[in-house]
Structure formats: C-alpha cells, structure tokens
C-alpha cells in the first residue's frame, strides 16, 4: 500500500528552540497512527507543518503524495484537522460554525445537512445547535470542534489531543467513531494524545516523541515487548530511603520509580526476584504491604523512553490558563 504520509528529516526551529528535530516517519494509507509525548515535545508543531499551517525550517513532508511546502493547496484538499487549541467562532451558533466549515469545503446542500445532523448526533449537541458558541461550556466547545473536524471525511485526518478534557463516556463515543472512520471509511488518522490508554486502544502504531525527536516507534504490543522486562510494584508503608539505596546497588534492577507509596521496579524474570526483594526489605526494616507483578503497559514504555510519566494535570492547567487569557481579551 502507498504511504499516506512521508516525513523526511522534518525540522522546525523557533528562534533558537528546536521544536521538531529531524523527524522521519512513513505512515501507510489507512493507518491509525499515534504521537505520544510530554508537554512541549513538538507534537502540535509537527502536525501543523503537515497541515501546511507552519513552514518547516528544513526537511520535507508529503501528505497524500503532495509536498506540504510546494503544493499546500493540494494537501489542504486532502486533509482535515481537529486542533488542540480553541478554533471556533464564538459569535456564531454551533450550526453556523459547521455550516461555515461545510461550505468552505465545498459540500453541497444535501450532504451538508446530512453530515451536520450526523455529527451533531455523535457529539450530542443537537439541542444546542442554534445556541451561540460563546454560551457553550468548555466540553461542549470541544465536542463541536470534533464534530466539525469529522464532517468532511478527508483522506487524512489529524487529531491533536481530540479528547482532552472530555468525560470518559463521551471519550468512549469519540473513540468508537474515530475507529469507524478509520476502518469503514478508510481514513488515515494521525492523533496526538496525553492519554496512554487512548494510544493503546486506538493506534496501530505509536511514536513516542520527546524534545522534538522520535525516541520509539512501533505497534503498542511490540513497544511493550521491546522493553522486555516485568514491572514489580511494591506497596510500602513507611519511609523507604534506606531500602531504595540498597536496591540502587543491584545491577538487575533496570529502573526504579517511586510514586504515591509505591515503588516500581523494572526487572527481567520478575517471578524469580520477588523472594530476594522480600529479604532485602526485611533487612532494611521496610514493611511491604503488597506486591504485584505485571507485564509492562504503554505507560511503562513511555517511562522507559522519556524518563518520566505523562502528567495530564499539566496540560489541563495550561489549557485553562490559555482559555482564560482568550476570554479576557474577548470584550
């Protein structure tokens, strides 16, 4: 199958800051591809270059076989995008926002009405369709943006944090719809996300991006397999400094992470190491309340490659601040 997207050494520098650093990826037609990375990793910048909104500093990218810098008009005709940041006209109603979009994409009257009603149903905004967007809640605005992005069934669809800040139930709906679009309508989808389970559940392949570089790229299953270790999680009640120091000397512990009273250890053949760990705990005078052994999740893969866990609060706080800034300017 042909590639829907070919990225070659794509780089974007903002006054000295390398936001995207020589990224090369090929994404096949019909693939559901995920970009996973912490705040400021360069996901949005990468997507904006692919969507022709930002000019690359160097490197090339082709979307649907068209070069994003040489043939931006043709690229635009093949793509759709749901932006991370607000992108609605607050002085128009929900319906008018959708109508604007549909007409800009040259959808004729019949199709326009049909799709509008379809996507409004999907995001459950039918009864608010004629209300001005400035009176929508944050979640409603997000849902409207998703509805809008799904309206014109492009060849390639970019979703920049599509479900950020939505309640779990709506998120599930959106996931199913995204899946359907991808499988039934054959739309190639590239999504960025902070939700590990979203990437895990939806994506055929996931690229982990950190400081503008791709640090890992594979199917979620293979990624988990690639770090090749088990995770032993110890629940510890008292102070563990001494214990941690003792474990730190052991070669067979690949990685150690303390979080909310738990100590996560990455080790090979986890089953065989538990007794030894119990001994050390006893010597260190640490009370272990529970032990669990699990196969790595995508979260662990992320931790392995990026060295920290994805923190969702960070983004939501940032987004709230941004939203507030916008409101303040709104007279």
């Amino acid at each position, binding site marked *: 199958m042909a590639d829907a997207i070919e990225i070659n050494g794509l780089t974007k520098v903002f006054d000295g800051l390398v936001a995207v650093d020589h990224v090369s990826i090929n994404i096949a037609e019909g693939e559901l591809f995920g970009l996973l990375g912490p705040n400021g990793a360069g996901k949005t910048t990468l997507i904006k270059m692919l969507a022709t*909104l*930002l000019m690359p500093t160097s490197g090339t990218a082709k979307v649907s076989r068209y070069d994003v810098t040489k043939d931006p008009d043709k690229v635009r005709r093949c793509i759709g995008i749901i932006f991370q940041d607000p992108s609605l006209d607050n002085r128009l109603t929900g319906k008018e926002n959708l109508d604007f979009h549909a007409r800009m994409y040259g959808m004729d009257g019949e199709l326009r009405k049909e799709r509008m009603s379809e996507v409004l149903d999907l995001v459950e905004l039918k009864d608010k369709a004629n209300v001005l967007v400035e009176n929508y809640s944050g979640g409603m605005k997000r849902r409207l943006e998703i509805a809008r992005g799904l309206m014109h069934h492009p060849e390639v669809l970019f979703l920049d944090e599509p479900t950020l800040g939505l309640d779990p139930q709506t998120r599930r709906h959106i996931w199913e719809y995204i899946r359907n679009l991808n499988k039934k309508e054959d739309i190639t989808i590239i999504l960025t996300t902070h939700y590990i389970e979203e990437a895990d559940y939806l994506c055929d392949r996931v690229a982990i991006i950190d400081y503008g570089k791709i640090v890992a790229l594979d199917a979620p299953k293979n990624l988990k397999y690639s770090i090749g270790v088990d995770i032993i999680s110890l629940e510890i009640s008292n102070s563990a400094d001494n214990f941690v120091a003792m474990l730190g000397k052991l070669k067979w512990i690949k990685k150690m992470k303390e979080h909310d009273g738990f100590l996560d250890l990455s080790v090979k053949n986890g089953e065989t190491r538990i007794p030894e760990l119990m001994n050390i705990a006893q010597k260190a005078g640490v009370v272990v309340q529970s032990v669990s052994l699990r196969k790595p999740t995508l979260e662990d893969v992320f931790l392995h490659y990026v060295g920290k866990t994805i923190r969702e609060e960070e983004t939501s706080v940032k987004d709230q601040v941004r939203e507030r800034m916008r409101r303040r300017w709104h007279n």
Partner: protein
Amino acid sequence: MAQLINLEAIYVMWLREMKRFFRAKSRIAGSLAMPFFFLAFLGTGFMNVRFSGMPPGVNYIDFLAPGVIGMILLFASLTAGISVLWDREFGFLKEIMVTPVSRVSIVLGRILGGVSTALIQGILILLISLGMGSKIVGIFGVLSSLVFMVLISAGFVGLGIAIASRMKDIHGFSLIMNFVIMPIFLLSGALFPLEGLPTWLIALAYIDPLTYGVDGLRGCLIGISHFNLLVDFLVLLCFCIVMVGIGAYLFEKTEVD
C-alpha cells in the same frame, strides 16, 4: 492549483462578517457614537467659525459631514481588516487557513464583508447628517458618493489585512490605532480645509489616501472639491488595487501558530 475565485467561500466569509456585525449591536452603537458627536458638537460649535480656505457659501456642517463619513469608513474598514488579528487570537484563523480555499478568495470574502459593514455605517452617518440639517446637491451625488465609499472601504480593509497579517498578536493594536488611524484621519482634511496648512503638512496630506476619499465625497455630496473628482477617483482606485494586492499577498504568507 486551487480554484482561485471560489464564490461559495467568498459568500460564506461575507455571511460570517455580516452575522457578526449585526449581532454586535452595542458595538455598532459605539462606533457610530464618535462620528455622531463630531457632527453634533463640532458641527454646531464651529457653525459660525470661518476657516481659511473654506469654500464661500458653505456651512461648516455641510463641509464636515463628508469628512465624518470618511472617518467612519476609515475606522470601520480598518477595524474589519484588522479583525484577522482577532481571528488569530481566538484561533478561528487556523480553521480558515487550513481549508482548501485559495487565500485570494478568503481575502476577497473578508474585503466584501468589511466593505459591506463599513458602507452600512457610512450610509447611517450620511442619513444622520441629513437629519441634522446638512445639505446635499442631489440624488446623483449620493449615488456617486457610494462609489467613493466602496473604494475608501476596500482600500482600508486591504490595509488592515496587510497590517494584521504582519502582526503576531493583538498587543500592537493600540499602536496602530494611534499611529495609523489618527494621522490618516486628521491629515485628510475631514475637519478643516487643507488650504490653511503649512506646506509640509499639505505635502503629508497629499500622500494620505483618505484626503482624496474625503475630497471625492465632498465633491459628490456638496458639489465642491479641492481636486478634480476624476483625480480623486483614480488615486483612490490605485490605492484600492495596491492595498488589496498587498493585503492578499501578506495574508497568503502568514503563518498560524
């Protein structure tokens, strides 16, 4: 090549401007207030003052009305052009720029919308000034003044788009208000005849496009103008074409982040 002139897109861009305009009732009232006060207070206050260079037999209010119409057109159309900046701030610009519509059509739609809203305000001020007793030479004058109103508005919408395309955020907004709009307005001869000014100011006034706009409006509405009306028309036409061209060019180049 995307279809250069996309009528549907131009229409929907225009429609959006109109909807936003008519929904912002308080803003319309606000923008009409200043020209109204100019007419009411300057018009009566300077009723009996003779400016040097004032054509004989012309009341100040008659002289002032076309100037104030020029003023509202300037304000309204620059604001409409600069609204690109607000779209950038609220993120809607991304939505517009990522569509497969040619930049030319987007700019044309914006200009059409900006000209329409400016024209509505210009006509309202014309009606108000008539209500306040300013006289006009006849219906043909009114109709030809509309041509000038369109040219003035289109040119300044273009200028607004050009400025907004070069700006990253709204922080420079008041700078533009003070360093672009006010000089253009005050130098245009909207409030007083240019004849009395020192030469260097007259030179500046002559490169101010609004000078020809206000003069053209005066020629149409009260039948007295400084330049030949054809000169006014041609200068404005050039201004308009150049500005729309520059506006479209810079808008084409703008990045959205």
